[in-house]
Structures are given as structure tokens and as C-alpha cells.
């Protein structure tokens, strides 16, 4: 059984057998329970925040990967255009169009 149950039995017993509504031990246990609950809640919240953050980061990474690939393709295309424009084949055609002749 969970500690809550233990706490619950003791607490009930003390209510019956003690004239005072709250004793020192009971106060301490309640405080422990509250602190533990708060810690658990904080940990859970932190976990959720991190999990959400990881999920968002995954999405960001995916976007960055796509951006990298897009830039890579753009680079490839630019390189292709540069090589095509500077090839002898193109230069020869341009020279011919412009009327250059070999002596």
C-alpha cells in the first residue's frame, strides 16, 4: 500500500484517541506529504516542459535539416550554372555568336 494509506490510518487513530485535533507528529507528516506532492508535481511539470521542448526541438531540427538540404541543392545548382557558363563549349558558342575568329 502507498504511504498515503499509512498516513491515513495513523491520522484516524489519532483523531479517535487524542483529545487534541492536531498533534505535532500529525503536523509533520502533513507537511512531508505536501512537500512530497509539490516535489512530484514540480518534477512532473519539469518533465512535461522538457518533453514538450524536446518535441519542439525535434521539429526544429527537422526544419533545419530541410533548410540545409535546400541550401545544398541551391549550391549544387549554382555550381552547375557556373561550370556550364565557364565551359569551353559555352565559350566557343559565345565567341561564335559574337563573331570572334581565330587568326
Amino acid at each position: 500500500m502507498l504511504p498515503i494509506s499509512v498516513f491515513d490510518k495513523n491520522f484516524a487513530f489519532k483523531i479517535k484517541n487524542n483529545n487534541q485535533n492536531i498533534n505535532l507528529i500529525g503536523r509533520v507528516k502533513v507537511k512531508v506529504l505536501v512537500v512530497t506532492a509539490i516535489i512530484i508535481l514540480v518534477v512532473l511539470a519539469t518533465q512535461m516542459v522538457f518533453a514538450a521542448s524536446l518535441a519542439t526541438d525535434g521539429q526544429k531540427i527537422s526544419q533545419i535539416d530541410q533548410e540545409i538540404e535546400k541550401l545544398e541543392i541551391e549550391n549544387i545548382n549554382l555550381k552547375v550554372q557556373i561550370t556550364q557558363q565557364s565551359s569551353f563549349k559555352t565559350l566557343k558558342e559565345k565567341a561564335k555568336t559574337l563573331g570572334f575568329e581565330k587568326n
Partner: protein
Amino acid sequence: MDRFRIFQLCVFLLAAIIILRLFYWQFVAKIEGNFGADVSSDTLPATRGEIYTADNFPIVTNQNASLLYAHPREIDKDPKDLARILAPFLISEKYSTREARLSADEKQQKEEEIKTKEESLTAKLANKNFFWIQLARKVPRQTRYKIEDTKINGLGFERDDKRFYPEASLAAHVIGFVGSDKFGEDTGYFGLEGYYDHRLRGKPGKSGKIIDPFGFPILIGKFRPHQPQKGTSLHLTIDRSIQFMVEEKLRLAIEKYDAKGGTIIISDPKNGHILAMANSPTYQPALYSEYNENLYKNPAVAETYEPGSTFKLIAMSAALDLGLVDPQTRCEDCSGARQIGGFEISTWNKKYYPNSTMTEIIQHSDNVGMTYVAAKLQVDKFYDYISKFGFGKETGIDLQGESTGFVRAKKDWKPIDLATASFGQGIAVTPIQMVQAVATIANHGKLITPKVVARIEDGKKTEEVKPNQIRQVISPQAATLMTEMMVNAVQNGEAKAFAPKGFRIAGKTGTAQIPVAGHYDPNKTITSFVGFVPADDPRFVMLVRFTEPTSSPFGSETAAPTFFEVAKELFNYFGILPSKN
């Protein structure tokens, strides 16, 4: 019931519900589909390495292209209609020039190809049993944009890069091409693409990451993508300017002499670097499938031929090296045709030169004189030199598809074989073997393996490509004597009218008849000229070879003038000045 009991019960109930639900999802429901986190093991293709000429120009690079696929079940158009839309985009790229440039025949071919493509696409798209079907590979970027503009449902693209050749067919036989193997993987065939395929292709990577139901990576656990490793890049010894000029000269010469084909190889004799290697007819590596498969082989390394008179250089070098003759040794038996083993050996023009010197024998390309040299050498010694010069085995050039040529086994040599081999008949060589052998004479008798790649770079380290072997074949003195005899052959031989004045060119013509069904066809010849310039400190060795020229069957009237034409261009390019004397 007090508050605590109620609270306790609620907690228990909630816990039980959650546990039961988890149990259901884990063991009962077994949900199918991509709803859980999964390890994506997609292969990340490696980029193929580039190929650069000596001036650092990427003669082969990669361009963005796509694989076009379809989900037949998602297509809402009639397969026939869809095929009609797609077919014009997916035919051969050779029709991608402007419509106006296509001839009437080409236009008709284009229409026929579109029709064939339509039929094959219709068959593929009509089959609804497939979830995914590949429609085309290596679709160019512009074509992809055009297809995307049609906004047809059920079509998709994947990255499928392809090779790009800025200079089109330049050095096609040296480069080779990239096709697909039986698994659809890019594979290099012929030339450098074939020889260095394992290094050019790189290593594919794996995405290896956990992805969520939306396909995004989860950055915990096994988020360790293995990046692909790009293939190594090749830096060639090929000089783009020389290659371009040589291909142009070869094309014009083939038109002029109406030859079936031709080859020109230029190399640096000091290090074995191939500066240019041109063949005609050739093909475009980007459209390799449009050409006859016979064109894929590089004739400069794969085609064998009888070298004819150019082989006299080998026999004479051997005799000089052994001291059996010297340039002034006179032939005592050169006054007429000779009978050897029942065969008559005569000169090509039936002219005879009694008591001619060894220098004159080379100058007149005298077959009878060469049989005198062969008789001095005998089979054992001649065979050893043929082998030492690298004939009958691969040179070790870094190109796929090299042939060994043919040299008859030593035990099978008869007197007539010894005689005919001395003037280059009954033996088959490759053009690159001939270049290697003459480069050996140019390089003071030292043989160096020819190479096309100077260095290999993988982004981190650079590897210099060194020759497989360097060995002394003949003495430097013998090489010098041979060189002088070759210079004399150019200055006073049959091709002297074409030789540029003022330059010391060492060279030798060759004319070989083509053996057909056991005899030589008198009308079909292979003409060649091989030499080096400047003779005293060679900057280049060059071989020019034509197959079946019809304007003239002689090397002195076809290959030699072409050699000198190319050499004149190289004098300007290298800054070679005429000698003073």
C-alpha cells in the same frame, strides 16, 4: 464516508483506469501504423566524387535531379490522360533542345518516343495493385518543376542526383559514365568512373534516429544519425585546353582524310602524365544509353592494332642497346627483296637502298633493312625487349578496360615472325602501349607507367597517384642515338614536307594493313605517327592514329600532318621556341 476515504478511492480508481488503459494499448489493441516512436533507418545517399581537369575545372560534377514516383491508388485522373501529360517530360534529354533546332527526322523520332513512353506509363499507372511505383529516374530539376506545376494528385519526387558534364562529350572515353547496377544503385562504367568507382561512390549513411508519429526526430535515446561520406574527388593530369584543342583537330582531320576513326594521345614523358586522350567517334556520357555500346570502350587503351613501321623503333632501340648496330652500321643485304621462310619481304614502295645505314633504314622505313636488324637480334633478345618495353601486357594506366595487345608466345616464333615483327606486323599493340614505349625513348630509356589521375582528394587528405613502375629499359646512350635517328626520319623522311621548320622533332610514321580473314586487305590501313618534341628535352610525346583513311592510305600523308598541326598548337601553348641551328 469521510473525505479521506473518498479521496483515497478516487486515487485508486484513477490509477486502475490508467493501468488498464495502458494494458489495453500494450497487449490488446496492437495498433497498426506509424503511431509509435520508431527508429528511422532511411539510407542517406552519398554524393559521388567529382572529377577535375588539371586546371581545377570540374569536368564531371553532380546536379540535382529527382526520382518520379506515383501512388496509383491516389491518382484521380484516368491513367491514359495522365500518361499523355507526363510522357513528353520523360523522354530522352536529347530532345530537350529548342524545337526549332530539331530536324524533321528527329521530330518524328521524338513523336514516336513520346508514344512509346505513353504506353509504358499507362500500363504502370493502370495497375492499382501497387502502392508505390517508380515512373522515372534522374528527372532534371526543370522538368520536375514543370510536372509539379500540373498539380496532379498521387505523384511524388525523391532526391536522385545525377552526373553533369559541363563540357558535354569532352574526354568522354577517359571519363566513362555512371549507370545503374542490378540493384538500381549508381555505378561507374568504363574509364575513370569504372576504374575508380569504389572510391568515387563514397559511403551511404543512415538516418538512425527515433522519430515521433509526425516524423520529427526525438532528441533522446538513439539520436545518432550516421552521416554519408562523400566520394573522393579525382584530379586529373588531363589538360582541358589541350584536350579541347586535340579533339577539335582530330574531328577536322577525320573529316579531311575521311577516316573511320582516330585517336590522339599526348603525354608528358618525364612523369607519364597523360595530357590529352582523344578518340573519334565518341559519345556523350550524359546520354550514354542513346549510343551504340561499341562506342563505350576507349580505343586508346582497349583497341589493338598492328603498329606497322612505328614498331621499327623498338627493334632498332633493342639492337642499339645491345651494341649489335650503331647509327652508321651499314646493311649489307638491303639491295632487294628478301626471302624468309618461303615469304618475300619487300619495302612499302619497292625501292631499295643498298648499303644504307641504320639511320637511313629508319628514314626510308625500310622493311628489308629491319629484317637485317632482326637477324642480328634473334628471337630471344628481341622478345625480351618487346616485353621490357611493355608490350603484351597492360601498361597499368588507371582506366577501365585496358587490353594487353597480342605478342605470340616466344616458343611459337618462327624466322618469318621475327622478320615481320621487326617492322610491326604479326604483333598487336594498343595505342597507349605505343605511347609508353616511345615515351621511354624520350625519357632517356626509363619506362614510366602512364597515369590519368594526378591526385585523389577526400576532403581530409590528399593522395598522390604514383606510377606503378619505373624501370630502365635501354641505356640513355641508346635512347639518345635512337632519338637522333627519329629526328633524321622527320627531317628527311616521307613526311618532311609537313614538318614545321626550325623545331627538332623526333618521330616515325607507320602504315599497317588490316588483317582480314588470314590475309592483309591492301585497301584498308591503319596509319599512325608517333614522336616527341623537342627532341633534346621533350615536353610531350604524341601518337596520332587513323583507322582506314580513304584520302590516302599512308601515315606520312595523314597521321604525320595531323601530328604537326597539333604540335604547332602545343608549341604556342608550352612556349616552345624553334631551335637556333
